[in-house]
């Protein structure tokens, strides 16, 4: 069984937004609805100043708070680790949106709190999610951590990584490269 994960090297990101629109096309989302976002931050004073950009999306947590609070089990975790939403079971209570520490969910036109699906239908066919494949800076590496030959496994072995908001105990499947 695969164990899907993503490694993000935020230091490579230049904030172009291709990941956002490529994802919107893949999932045919309307313009104002997005499954990923960028957080911009400035540090320092002119001319000694740096900009940081952090790409954020659903972390497909191994301990997902959104799943625990869902009253109808609409949010579920697949055996490969991908967290998904069963639209038929969702009653639109939005508990999951409140519970997510990453603010990763967004309402679709049917008022279902949607989010990044790790391109669940496509990755099982060996395709790369377009947020990763379209990125000119190769910010994201998607892959299977159980496959020692996968690009992500090799990169994880070489680099030290961190996760966002670890104190919440969510155990995210998205890792960030430590610089």
């Amino acid at each position: 069984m695969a164990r899907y994960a993503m490694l993000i090297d935020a230091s490579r990101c230049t904030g172009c937004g291709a990941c956002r629109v490529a994802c919107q096309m893949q999932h045919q989302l309307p313009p104002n609805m997005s499954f990923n976002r960028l957080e911009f931050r400035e540090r320092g004073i002119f001319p000694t100043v740096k900009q940081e950009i952090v790409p954020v999306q659903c972390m497909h947590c191994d301990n997902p708070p959104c799943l625990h609070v869902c009253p109808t089990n609409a949010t579920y975790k697949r055996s490969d680790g991908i967290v998904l939403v069963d639209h038929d079971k969702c009653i639109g209570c939005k508990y999951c949106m409140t519970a997510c520490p990453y603010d990763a969910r967004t309402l679709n036109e049917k008022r279902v709190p949607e989010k990044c699906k790790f391109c669940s239908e496509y990755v099982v066919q060996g395709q790369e999610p377009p947020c990763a494949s379209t990125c000119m800076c190769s910010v994201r590496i998607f892959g299977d951590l159980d496959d020692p030959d996968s690009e992500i496994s090799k990169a994880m072995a070489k680099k030290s990584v961190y996760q966002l908001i670890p104190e919440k105990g969510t155990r995210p499947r998205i890792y960030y490269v430590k610089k």
Partner: protein
Amino acid sequence: MAVKKFNRRTFIKAAAASGVVGSVPMYLSLADHKKVASEEPLKKVWSQCNGCASMCSKAVYSKNNRLWKVEGHPLHLKSGGRLCARGHGMAADVYNTSRVTQPMKRVGDTFEPISWEQAFSEIGEKLGKIVEEHKGDSVLWVEHGPRGKFYADILLDLIGSPNYCTHYSTCFTSKTNVWPKMVGDSLAADHENANYLLFVGRNFGGGIIPNGMNKIHKAIERGAKLVVVDPKYNEMAKIAHDWVPIRPGTDLAFYLGLAHTLISENLYDRNFVNRNVLGFSEFWEANKTASADWASEVTGIPADKIREIARDMAASAPKAILEPGWHGLNCHYVNSTQTAQMNVILNALVGNFYKIGGLYPGQDIPFGSVDRKMPPFKRKGERADGAGVKGKFPTVEPGRGIAQITPQLVEEGLIKAVFIYHYNPLRTAPNPEYQKKIKDAELVVVIPTDWNETAVHTAHYILPEDYYLERTETPRNNSGHLAHIYPQISIRAKALDPIHDTKPLREIVAGICEAMGYEGYFNFTIEDEVKAALSTVEGLTPERLYEEGTIEFTTHFMEGVPLEFKTSTKKINFKVPEYEANGFSGVPTWVPPATWPKEENEFRLIHGKQPWHSHSITANNPYLMAITKAYNGEWMWMNKVRADKLGIKNGDTVTVQSSVSTKQAKVKVTELVHPDCVWISNSYGNFSERQKDGYGVGVNFNDFLELQVEPMAGGTNSQEIIVKITKGVS
């Protein structure tokens, strides 16, 4: 004309490009298109992007003529398998509600739909009369360029007009003016193999070439050093080793300081210069006092930093490049042509010409041309805009012209009929209120895909072109901007059937010509043209190119400086004879910008690209404008120290006043921009009410810019703008 056969040995296949895609499920949650495609097979066609001028080859996936998504071609030089936000977003624009859906005729301040037959017949009749009364010289074709040129030339040759004009004078004209005169070629940088990369006023992360950024990351991983010099902390500055903010308008002084260091410290490539350069000693005589210390005073960059950059470049030479650049700096100031000359000189001083890891020319294959009836010879007069004309603008390239003065030519009565193709001068040329005078010509035909400002405010007739996904075009070489040793060609094939009553440009121009009585000049189809184009390549069929999208050849560039350069002197000209002969200095020396901010509330207004927009063409795209909304992309950047002095806080509305206009903007207070200037993206300020996503969002630098022509290359001096900024609405 017989075309020499181009010998193909083998093609390198785009292996990843021809996968099986038939079983991919598809989700169409957009209300209008939910059911249309569910049972249909997935179709994949290779097109070329139209989101900017890079023309990345991309796969277009659709079902039942409904677009799903696009993907970059892995082999294409500009794409490298990746697409930017614009590449994805602009594909979806095929469904934009602002598209012009059929031919339109102006009736007062509005438009009424007409048939193509009526449009052709009325335009043909009016144009015929204009040519009869005022000669063909009174007709102007202006376009982004040069994509419509083949068809435009047929029309212009038939009526006898020399007035073909591109948008280049509003964009990068100093660069394209200088290189042929100084080097006889246009060289691109080999970023991937360079060890030192100096980017001044150029930003692959904003004016995006996806594979360009990819190559820069690769160079950095390999240990190359990247230095970005820009008044604004641009997207490339984020990944650079060094961001060097420079006082805007002084890049020429910085370049002179670098050259002074290289020469005075004897760090330049003496062999290369002695063997290939004319005018070195005149250049040095004229610039002996332009030291790093002097340059530091002018630019605000510490002298030690200038010397460090020059020494580092020399240490990495010849694998050191000063990126030749594009829009940035090449039509911005009265000193832009001298700045462009210095770009050539600095690269020559480090001896990187025709070297791997340095600069070398694009590798092109020659295309054949369709067998057709040629227009009879007609005498043509002088160009109306004076480009290449003695006594007017003798050194401006006549093949490109001076686009920004079109309304002036109409006002002076020199131009009576204007054709505007794939170009929106009302938003992308200086002073839009003045550009509106284009409408006063006797005939104005606009050929757009959407209701842009030029169509709405100047057109007498609007003839809508098929969207780029709806048309097949002749193949193109992929060279330019990024050096690549192998030639590559790509094709834009029709991926979707047209959804509106639109036509390809060929049929539009043919319709007008035929209505004027010129029969038989368009007796060929696009398929004939594609076949003829490929007739120079043995064994390459159109079918194969359609299937592979992009093809790379194995013949390749070899290092080696040519014995002769294609200049007037056959050498590299540090002193340009064509400039000298026309009363300009042949060698570049310091020329200050024409304007300076002086008062506490005065700033130089500078602009640049934002990564999710190209220019006006993307400003009404719902997906790209949603990014603008999410990140306040239309706000004007102001340095915090200056903002504090004026009591301006982040998000405040301010009044921005220039000699041309007064408008309001919101301010982003930041440490990421030089205190002398304010910065805005060049994409906003849309004023076509028929474009609901772009209309009324932000301001544009052209709103504040006086009409000017830089005399050597014809540029617009687009950053010679001083604005007064006051808090609030006044």
